[in-house]
Structure formats: structure tokens, C-alpha cells
């Protein structure tokens, strides 16, 4: 994935600004957001960033999953049978890019619980802030693809 962000200004270690005509968006710094998984034998694997997360490369069998945002906030995800974290973003034909959320789909016996971690906030829609978590529920998918990772 192209890691250029032509629409971001004043990028710091914590966040970056995107200036629109009527709106200003504050976003996490996507280069500094990653997951951490811990295994029963003490191993810890840290993900990369929001462009290339590294999720598909980790083995099954971990016991803990958490997300670290560039703001420093750590969001632990409760233990479920399996997880599928999806990065939700939008790409403009002009190359502009906004990271909206990380949607962690968590497998339960009869449904999915979805942990939606907010990655941006703006001055028009002030309902949610960076780091907020919105819980939702979805029906079980027909198939669990190879990107699903199982806990120990």
C-alpha cells in the first residue's frame, strides 16, 4: 500500500491534521498505531502500522490482543475464540486518505461482537473522539477466511 498521505498536515508522533473547506479532521498518526499479541510461552509480537499491519503473518494461539494508538492509548480486547481486525479507510482519487476505525470482529458461539476503535475526530461530527470504542454485534459469517486468528 502507498504510505503517502498528501492530505495530512502537521503530522506529529501523536496525530495529524487534515484541513477541509468546512471541516478539520484530527487523525491518529497511522505510522504509529499497531496491535500487540502475547502467547502463553511469553512471546510478544508487535504489529507494524495501519498501512501494513502484519496481522496475516502472526501464528494462532495467542492469549491476549490489544491495540496501541499513536496517542499512547492502549485498548485491550477481551478474550474471544478468534479475531478478525479490519482497518477501515477511504482513498480519494486524488490520493487523499483517511483512516476511520479499526473494526475488531470477535468470534462468539452464535454471533460476532465488533469492537470499533475510532481513529479520527472532526469538528462537524463531535459524537466520537479518537480512541473511543463502539461495541456492536453482527451475525456469523458463512465462512471464516484465513485472516481469522484463533486464541489458545
Amino acid at each position: 500500500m502507498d504510505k503517502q498521505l498528501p492530505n495530512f498536515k502537521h503530522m506529529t508522533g501523536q496525530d495529524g491534521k487534515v484541513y477541509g473547506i468546512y471541516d478539520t479532521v484530527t487523525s491518529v498518526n497511522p505510522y504509529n498505531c499497531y496491535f500487540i499479541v502475547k502467547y502463553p510461552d511469553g512471546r510478544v509480537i508487535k504489529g507494524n502500522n495501519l498501512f501494513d499491519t502484519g496481522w496475516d503473518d502472526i501464528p494462532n494461539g495467542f492469549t491476549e490482543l490489544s491495540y496501541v494508538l499513536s496517542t499512547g492509548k492502549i485498548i485491550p480486547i477481551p478474550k474471544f475464540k478468534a479475531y478478525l481486525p479490519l482497518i477501515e479507510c477511504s482513498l480519494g482519487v486524488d490520493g487523499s486518505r483517511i483512516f476511520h476505525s479499526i473494526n475488531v470482529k470477535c468470534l462468539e458461539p452464535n454471533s460476532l461482537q465488533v469492537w470499533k476503535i475510532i481513529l479520527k475526530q472532526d469538528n462537524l461530527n463531535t459524537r466520537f473522539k479518537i480512541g473511543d470504542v463502539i461495541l456492536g454485534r453482527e451475525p456469523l459469517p458463512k465462512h471464516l477466511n484465513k485472516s481469522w486468528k484463533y486464541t489458545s
Partner: protein
Amino acid sequence: MAVTISTSFYEYDTPDWHDLSTVVFTSPNMVSPNTAGTRSHILPGELPLATWYEIVGENMWRIYNRQIASIESFYPAVDPATTVSGFDIRNSIVFEVTNGENYDNRLTAWDSVTHSSTNNYLISTDRVKASCANYSWSGGTEDAPVTVKYGGSVDPETLEPENPFAPQYNITLKGNTTISGVEQYYGDWDMIYSLPTSGRQGDYLIVRPWLDNITASVPYGVHDFVITLHYSYT
């Protein structure tokens, strides 16, 4: 896994593919190609606008001379009641997944690079339109997607059942809005890259953007907006 998506358009007179930087609707009364960023003053309703596609810092090409194109056999028709023949690379933008896979794709338009507001005259008055189709191909020959991606024209309907999501014509693009049950975007569907040698190629999204009802009622000024592809990946 991470996904890579290219966005390109085809310049027909001096045939070549270019990476797209922006879509411009301005006067047809300039030579093509022209320097990227060139704009011509034109009063709303005075002349039909032309559609130009532009590369960062280089050239822009006039893709089509008018906003209203209901008679060309290979162009998505403006009148929803008109029979639609299909898409043509000469008027369209192609999104191509070149690595990985992405889910819940949605094509829409926002007011600016914040991708967060529809506070824009053209968007809020339902003037931003597009015809869209996504497709892949496993028909036993590699010619069909090549036709779409590299040279000719084809009705995406004929590519079924490889179409994971039905084509839509002349839809309004307005953020994530749904009005009276009608979605103001094209989506949601998944795209997966597959090697051309696998017998299945893709996935692609082909889009023809246009503006509706640019009459004297449109206020004078610049009405920039951004067409975006919204998606998820691991």
C-alpha cells in the same frame, strides 16, 4: 493483508494509461492535453462542461466534451430509462486491486480531503453522479478483462456471474447517505487480487463520473469535491 489499489485512466488519442490525480469539470474550449491545473472561466448554463482527468503536476486530458451523453452506444446513459450498453475506458476511471484483498468497498463523494462532510453545493443538490461496475473474469480466455482494462468496451452485465456486485447507472454520490431507502453510493462489495495466470483476473471497478443539471441556477464559483473508495482490510 495489506491491499494495493491503483487508480488510472486511459488517454485515447495518444493511447496510454495514466495514474489519476483528480477529476475536473471545466470548459471544453481548451486544447487537450493541457497543463494540469488549467481551468477556464465559464458561466453556469452557458456551455456544456467537459470532463478532464488530470495527473499530478503534469498534464490533464479532456476525456469527454459534455456532461450530458445519452446517445453514445458505448456510454452509460444519463436517462435511467434509456437502455444502457456499457462502459468504455475512454470515459471511465479504473480501480484495480494489484495485491491483497479488501472488503466492504463503497464508492462515494465527499466535500474535501477530510472525507467527512457533504457540505458542498454540487453534492448536497444531488448533481454528482456516476455509473459504476465491478467485475472479475474467469471465462477461459484472458481477452475479456483486457478488453475492459486495455482497449475496448464491454457491458459489465455480460461478465456475470463473475460480477460480485451488480452494476449501477447514474446513481447519486453523497457520502454515506441513504434517502428513502436509496443508497447514495455504490457498494458494498469485496475485491480480491488474483494472478492473471490463475485463469481469473481482477478485481476491477470501473467508474464514469459526471455532473447533472449544470444550469444557470448553479452559483458561480469553484465547487471542488472528492470521489473516494471506502474499504476495509486486515
